[in-house]
């Protein structure tokens, strides 16, 4: 961060404010200017992020950097800026309108405690669009959209962000002499800082409600809300800093993991195998290892999985497509072979059974082997293996059995693929061996 050597006398440019006479936006911006002068940060490193509304025009009257985006979203842009460049001073200027349409962002920025400073120019209505009521319009107040008096209760902005963990929260008015100091204090705070600054919209709210600066206290009293500093939590970690502190350099898990071709398959055409089981049977990972073994044998493999949204219950289906040539289309109509492991798997694949060709093969676990199909039927009995298999081993064991029965590629490739599975090598190796025993027995 660069700091100017000579302190600037002002952060304003020479454009006059565009606001109505008596509008509270002008004194708040003067206070912001005083705070910026006081803090002395290089204007290039201060970003005023303005929302939409009369208050949203504010950034144009400063020599700082600026971001003027969409209505209600200023906090999201400010968050992105702060995350990417935590060294910048990021100040959001938003109206009370923005706290309604962008309420979710207000809550979540407070909760994350991202180190931005939010100035809410709270004039109890939408100035720019013609004095409609906002989330902060006091109950009973008249606006262009509440002709019989506002029926809604105003949002307690400060209470909301404070209870959700904001680092600094203050409520006051545009008339408060200490406003520049409070703005500077908020900017100095590490975490999420918010100032709810009550002010007068002379064009609408003042006219419709005979509202005066003295009425602020009455409204506060009616609501029973405090003013002044409402929360200071320097103990809470600021999000951008916490993110960096938690980040650790590490090896990428998305870089290519090449599979060597060590075996040779004699498969001369596209072949599809559907494995139908239940969640918890590790069908998907079993088929995945099988695919890797096929690739070791020089084949091209593709795999589409089907499972319900509730992944730990119900069916789990995986379709494996194998081909000696690259696969441009991995869709499957009726598979060449079908492995059925459970009732869930049977229920999901039942419709296919009558459509299978007489040359195709169905391999089913004993309790789901009572089937009607034109295909050949074989029973895979996990009981024949010398190792006792857990349910979680069924997917892979059945795949190994099917590969050995169908002769899709050398079973040595399965053994190698299991051995290349790092931590899991030993465990998967045993399951593959058991599957091969099941296959041998079924043949």
């Amino acid at each position, binding site marked *: 961060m660069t700091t100017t050597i000579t302190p600037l006398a002002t952060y304003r440019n020479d454009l006059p404010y565009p606001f109505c006479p008596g509008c509270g936006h002008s004194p708040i911006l003067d206070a912001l200017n005083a705070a910026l002068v006081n803090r002395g940060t290089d204007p*290039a490193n201060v970003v005023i*992020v303005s929302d939409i509304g009369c208050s949203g*025009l504010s*950034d144009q009257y400063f020599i700082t*950097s*600026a*971001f*003027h*985006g*969409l209505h209600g*979203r200023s906090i*999201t*842009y*400010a*968050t*992105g*800026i702060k*995350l*990417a*460049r935590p060294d*910048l001073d990021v100040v959001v200027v938003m109206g009370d309108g923005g706290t309604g349409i962008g309420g979710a*962002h207000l*809550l*979540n920025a407070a909760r994350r405690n991202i180190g931005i400073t939010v100035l809410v120019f709270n004039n109890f209505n939408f100035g720019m669009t013609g004095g409609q009521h906002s989330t902060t319009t006091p109950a009973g107040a008249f606006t262009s959209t509440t002709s019989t008096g506002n029926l809604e209760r105003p949002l307690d902005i400060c209470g909301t962000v404070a209870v959700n963990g904001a680092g600094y929260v203050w409520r006051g008015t545009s008339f408060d002499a200490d406003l520049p100091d409070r703005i500077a204090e908020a900017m100095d705070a590490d975490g999420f800082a918010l100032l709810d600054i009550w002010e007068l919209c002379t064009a609408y709210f003042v006219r419709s409600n005979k509202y005066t600066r003295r009425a602020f206290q009455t409204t506060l009293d009616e609501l029973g809300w405090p003013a002044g500093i409402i929360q200071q939590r320097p103990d809470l970690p600021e999000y951008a800093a916490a993110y960096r502190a938690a*980040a650790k*350099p*590490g*090896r*990428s*898990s*998305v870089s*290519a*993991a*090449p*599979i*060597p*071709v060590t075996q*040779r398959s*004699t*498969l*001369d055409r596209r072949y599809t195998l559907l494995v139908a089981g239940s969640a918890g049977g590790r069908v998907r990972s079993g088929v*995945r290892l099988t*695919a*890797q073994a096929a*690739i070791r044998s*020089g*084949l*091209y*493999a593709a*795999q*589409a999985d*089907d499972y319900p949204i509730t992944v730990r219950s119900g069916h789990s289906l995986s379709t494996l497509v194998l081909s*000696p040539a*690259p*696969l441009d*289309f*991995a*869709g499957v*109509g009726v598979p060449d072979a079908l492995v059925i492991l459970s009732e869930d798997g049977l229920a999901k694949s039942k419709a296919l059974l009558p459509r299978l060709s007489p040359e195709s093969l169905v391999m089913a676990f004993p309790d789901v082997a009572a089937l009607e199909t034109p295909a050949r039927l074989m029973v895979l009995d996990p009981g024949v293996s010398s190792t006792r298999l857990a349910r979680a081993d069924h997917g892979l064991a059945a795949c190994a059995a099917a590969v050995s029965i169908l*002769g899709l590629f050398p079973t040595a490739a399965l053994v190698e693929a299991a051995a290349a599975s790092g931590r899991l090598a030993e465990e998967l190796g045993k399951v593959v061996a058991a599957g091969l025993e099941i296959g041998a027995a079924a043949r």
Partner: protein
Amino acid sequence: MPQAMDQRATPPPREYTDGSTAIVRAALEAGCNFFAGYPITPASPILTMMMREMPRVGGIAVQGEDEIASIGMCIGAVMAGARALTATSGPGISLYSENLGLAVMGEIPLVVVDVQRLGPATGGATTVGQGDVQFVRWGTSGGYPIIALAPSSVPECYHLTMKAFDLAERFRCPVFLLTDKELNMTMATVALDAYRPVDVRPRPRAEEPGRPYRYTPAEDVPPLRHYGAGETVRFTGSTHDERAFITKHPPTVDALNRHLAAKIEEHRDEIEMAAADLDPRAETLVVSYGVTAGAAREAVRRSRAGGAPLSSVVLQTLWPVPEATLRRAATGVRRVLVPELNLGQYRREVERVLPGMDVSGLNRVDGEMITPEQILEAVR
């Protein structure tokens, strides 16, 4: 079974992966250092991987409170010097809409992945579809040109992600990568030499301070300036002059709006990509894109193997429409078939580009993929 294996001594190394992984890998290689997204099937794997990878490479990844926050954070981060990616599916694109306009207006380079799923609203979360083709084109107010690329394979997911980053930098605009559930989530075998990286251009340094925008000549793209680089930088989504101050001055507003269109329209040759596989004897041309192109390529192979010539154009750029390529490819054919997993959204464009041509569609919206057999049937 007969011995008919690949007879080469050592085939190039291969991997078993999916489109989501290829997109994330490409983004990281493209220098992407900021990601924000909100979970949605089938785009969630990109979010999960980015959340895991970014802290390892010194970047930032955030799960936003919603899609609006996610794309908003990306836009803010780009203005603070980051290279950003976000990913969602159709419902999330709906929530991106207004901010996409902001990125167009404020001239923000940003790559947006739309992993399409079926149907309007929640639709089919785990079901393939290609229904967002016109949506991404016209998905924000004002109606300005947009760039959208559509990979048709895992290697193309990689290549076109990098290309999307490069085009975003080149034209200072959001670039869509339009994929789908099958492309992103189906595991596939990829020969490592099939990945084609792209040199993503660095962000040029700006010369004259204080002018973040420039409208003359209309098709020129001024360098992006970002915060924290020593100079004051202004950004705005309102109609603005070249110094980013709000204006209604008609000649300035006119120049701005024409610039936003011209910078893309006048450089179509840099953006439009398509793979034409033409047979001069063919009477039919198949125009396809995305996951459907895989079936089209397979159909072309089978048709030719059976002695029936067939031509194919696979579009990698959907927007702007590669019109010149389409016209060239259609020369000499009698009819054009456009298979898509929607009710004919891109067929409209093909019809517009090839007036008088017999253009028909092959359309599925049942959540299943179009098969090579269906295409062969349709061209018979």
